[in-house]
């Protein structure tokens, strides 16, 4: 009985945390795969979106779900402005300039939020329907975690569907595989970049809002979880939606298991496994081999 509860906790808790990791990271994976841009500021978009959502709920009394939509839209709009004005100047620059630029953006976001909202941590009050426990028959678990897992499945399936079954998805896949060829075929790569960048940033915002309840939300968020986002993306494989989904769920479950059984620094195994995996498959689990 005790072991069963533990196991349910690890699997359900891990899957829900992994879902949040997936929702935040999927945009990063697609934009990195598509544009080859090392966007370390992706976590800052997640943080920004999280703040929009939490403030909309706490100060403007907007409900949870509309607030999530608002966060998505506002963050996507902001990212379009930044992409048009700044990011696109660096698409052809070296990784070093991109790293520097996005670290600079992170600092600007952190300072901006500290000035505008304050350095203290924000709390997100879940709507009563999502609070409490959910009866699974053999055990009870937090309703919100179950909700997250379901939402994650829907989002992953939705994005997969768009990628595999729509025209724009085919264009994205073509551009990830061979940008020059895609351009030659008349695909408007510029427009594709802007659309995917906005969508990815919006997803990050959604993830920031969905995860705010248990990850917390303070101005250091953009840096604190950056390594996790990057690990999820590089383990999953650049540009691969399903790869990031599996990687994020794997990391989530592993993290929960390690925290339970090795509370002192169990995260070390996540780093070890990441290094081993990237040495074995530098392109990640489901990434395509570089040509």
């Amino acid at each position: 009985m005790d072991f069963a509860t533990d196991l349910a906790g690890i699997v359900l808790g891990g899957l829900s945390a992994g879902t949040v990791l997936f929702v935040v990271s999927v945009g990063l994976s697609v934009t990195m795969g598509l544009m080859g841009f090392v966007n370390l500021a992706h976590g800052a978009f997640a943080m920004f979106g999280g703040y929009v959502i939490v403030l909309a709920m706490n100060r403007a009394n907007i409900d949870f779900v509309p607030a999530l939509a608002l966060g998505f839209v506002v963050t996507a709009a902001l990212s379009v402005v930044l992409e048009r004005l700044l990011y696109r100047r660096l698409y052809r620059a070296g990784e070093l300039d991109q790293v520097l630029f996005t670290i600079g953006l992170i600092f600007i976001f952190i300072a901006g939020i500290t000035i505008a909202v304050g350095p203290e941590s924000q709390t997100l009050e879940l709507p009563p329907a999502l609070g409490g426990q959910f009866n699974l028959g053999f055990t009870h678990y937090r309703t919100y975690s179950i909700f997250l897992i379901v939402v994650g499945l829907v989002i992953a399936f939705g994005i997969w569907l768009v990628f595999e079954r729509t025209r724009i998805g085919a264009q994205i896949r073509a551009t990830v595989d061979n940008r020059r060829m895609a351009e030659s075929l008349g695909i408007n790569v510029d427009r594709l970049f802007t659309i995917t960048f906005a969508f990815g940033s919006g997803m990050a915002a959604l993830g920031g809002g969905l995860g705010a309840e248990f990850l917390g939300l303070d101005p250091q968020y953009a840096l604190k979880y950056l390594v996790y986002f990057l690990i999820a993306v590089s383990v999953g494989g650049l540009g691969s939606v399903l790869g990031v989904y599996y990687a994020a769920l794997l990391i989530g479950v592993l993290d929960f298991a390690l925290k339970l059984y090795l509370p002192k620094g169990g995260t070390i195994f996540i780093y070890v496994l990441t290094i081993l995996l990237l040495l074995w498959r530098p392109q990640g689990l489901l990434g395509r081999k570089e040509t």
Partner: protein
Amino acid sequence: MSASATSAESTSFAARINHPAARALIERHRLRWWEVLPWIAAIAGYFIFPGYLGFGTELLVAILFALSLDLALGYAGIITLGHAAFFGAGAYTVGMLADHGVWSEPITGLMLAALVAAIVGLLSGLVLLRTRGLTLLMLTICSMALLEQAANMAHDYTGGFDGLPNLPITPIFGVFNFNPLYNNTQYLYALAVLLACFVFVRTLVYSPFGQSLTGIRENLLRMHAVGAPVRRRLIICYTLSAAIAGIAGGLWAQVNAYVNLSSLDLDRAATVLIVLILGGYGRLYGAFVGAVVYLALEHFLARIYPTAWQLGLGILLVFIALFARNGILGLGEALWRRYGGRHKPSAPS
């Protein structure tokens, strides 16, 4: 192109050696008069600002650390966000040996720090340098995070989260004591270490080995084509860079008489990268300029207006990435070329 080459062959040796390109190549590694200025400034600073020697010591350590990164990133083009791994390895070597009463002599302590950091650099380099680009960036971050977690877990040896305070470091040569209130000894000691390491790095980058590193940075494919042992050179360079970063870390632990997890974190790795880029990478003195500007701004601004400092730093980084990719020295060089006197030939981009 071919016409000038044939005419050069037909002209005399004296004419050939006076060709601007030939002159540039011959004079490239010659010591210039202004290269003594930083050292004069450092010694003058010792007498002029006796109240700021603690800050000065911190500055010298930062220069040394940025210099080590310049070797790997600026010359060999290895893009890493995990250089604090070696800084921390050196710092913890000195710290753990001193705290457990094994070894507390400073100069040999630094050598041990260099050795341990070099071993870490060699082992990680053997593995990591097979990859490039984003994967390499990720692996450097991950291996640094790995060391940080290991240091956090091995509480009995490393002090865990609290680190090791009050390290007993014996006086240099048994005479010059590290006084925590007066930083005179620390400052001069750090200056001497920096000078020694700088001479080493300068000699190295102008040696044939250093030239081949620049070649690898500029055109990897061509270096493979001419038969250069690319991977071996990168690993050696990474190891040497790690050793110097280890010395910087060991020095940091000695002059502060403590070591903690901040020596290993992403913050420190990002800061050293910013310092180097701010000054200008791949040009030796970028580390000096960047560290002076960054630390001076941080010292005087960050304490008073921490948030404004972070905002300003962010804007500065965005500006550098977009408009001034070669840092302050690169900006100065561009202005010099435009408005200053003669053409300056040696400008690694």
